[in-house]
């Protein structure tokens, strides 16, 4: 972490409270797996790195605790990056399946060529044989985000935003495992799934698109639960 991150956030929104800025920076660090589950968050270290006082850091940690990104233990002091709770993962993936299947149905039904093309572009981005964890995470995440955008339903987008950091984190954990274990065929399978979904939409089959995305996400859930077991 670096002071520049604070400056970047404040540039985008100069009126943000500092504790909220710190909160967002730490959420990103946790979602990007720069702070691994179980890592102790040192208030003094964080405030030194970011070049700010301890008060906004303390306030940010309280908010992280309330939102489940960090946890405390009765036998040791301080805040620790929380492990991915299986219970929470299951809830999130349930929501993902719910909103993405609805979104893809609406996308296919609306038959908005512009949005469908954007979805195809997002699917194509993942076609290259990348092995970079951040790129794979970004492109996979972008595809699923584009599904939501293409529905045109703002409420679906609001739900997605509610859980997007957790979605990113779980996507990254999956790819981290696949890369570390050289499972290129599994990465290719994800790409195939995404392209298959785009083809189904192009062929004007909303109900089938709905089923396919639900199967894809439930498949991802099973993989994520396996990965968590291996962390």
């Amino acid at each position: 972490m670096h002071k520049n991150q604070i400056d970047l956030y404040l540039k985008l929104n100069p009126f943000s409270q500092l504790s909220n800025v710190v909160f967002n920076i730490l959420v990103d660090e946790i979602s990007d797996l720069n702070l691994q589950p179980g890592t102790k968050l040192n208030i003094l270290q964080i405030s030194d790195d970011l070049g700010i006082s301890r008060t906004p850091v303390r306030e940010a940690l309280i908010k992280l605790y309330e939102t489940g990104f960090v946890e405390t233990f009765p036998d040791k002091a301080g805040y620790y990056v929380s492990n991915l709770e299986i219970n929470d993962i299951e809830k999130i993936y349930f929501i993902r399946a719910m909103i993405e299947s609805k979104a893809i149905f609406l996308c296919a039904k609306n038959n908005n060529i512009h949005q469908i093309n954007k979805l195809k572009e997002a699917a194509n981005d993942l076609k290259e044989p990348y092995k970079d964890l951040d790129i794979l995470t970004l492109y996979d995440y972008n595809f699923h985000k584009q599904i939501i955008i293409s529905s045109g339903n703002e409420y679906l987008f609001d739900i997605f935003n509610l859980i997007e950091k957790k979605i990113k984190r779980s996507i990254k954990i999956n790819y981290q495992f696949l890369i570390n274990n050289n499972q290129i065929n599994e990465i290719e399978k994800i790409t195939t799934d995404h392209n298959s979904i785009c083809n189904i939409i192009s062929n004007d089959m909303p109900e089938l698109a709905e089923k396919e995305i639900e199967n894809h996400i439930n498949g991802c859930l099973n993989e994520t639960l396996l990965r968590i077991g291996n962390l």
Partner: protein
Amino acid sequence: MNEKNDEPKRTELGPKLEISKHIFNTIFNAISSSEHIHSNKINITDLSKIIGVKSKLVIDALNILCNYGIIEKKLNKNEFYQVTAYYNDIMQAHIMHSMLGSKASFLCAVMNPCPNIKRIEELADEFNKIDYSNNIVSVDFEFHNLIIHSCGNKYIIKFYESMSKQIEQYKFLNLEYLMKYKIDEDFTYQHNKIFNAIALNEPKLAQVEMQKHITQGFIDTIFFSQLDS
């Protein structure tokens, strides 16, 4: 269902309105799914044949949907089209309500037992005994809110609460029409069907029954609001 002597007087629909409502129901469901309508332009002749009624009745129903922005119409022509941009806020809110409510029912049915199952049953039974006065509103609201809050998914609960104003707005309207018109009596038993599916741990059935119930309420609200306008 027995009516009490002091029950508020509700207007009978009569055969003409019953038919119009049935046609409207069928067309709304066809538009919302991709059943029977496979292109952007809505084929009135085809729909008339499928439902088995004259084109004029189909056009009347399509005009109602058009007034609510659920489909579009070419200026000065009887040509109707699927919405090419996005649905308006009323339809978007309904989609969300239906999705959240039905998935919450699904989750309640997965749990064995579902929390608050006794109270859910009581409320379902109460809905059948109501006297179509204002009591109907509190019973209905409590039933639906309890299912949401019992589902165990904090994201569903949080988001439903954030949308509660939009949802309550058209639920009020729906219940108003239920108090005013003698709508299909099966509607009042729908809460029982949802409860039964939850109690029997049939998640897909619970989901479907809730979806049907919410959609029926929405359709009735649109249809009857046209009568009053």
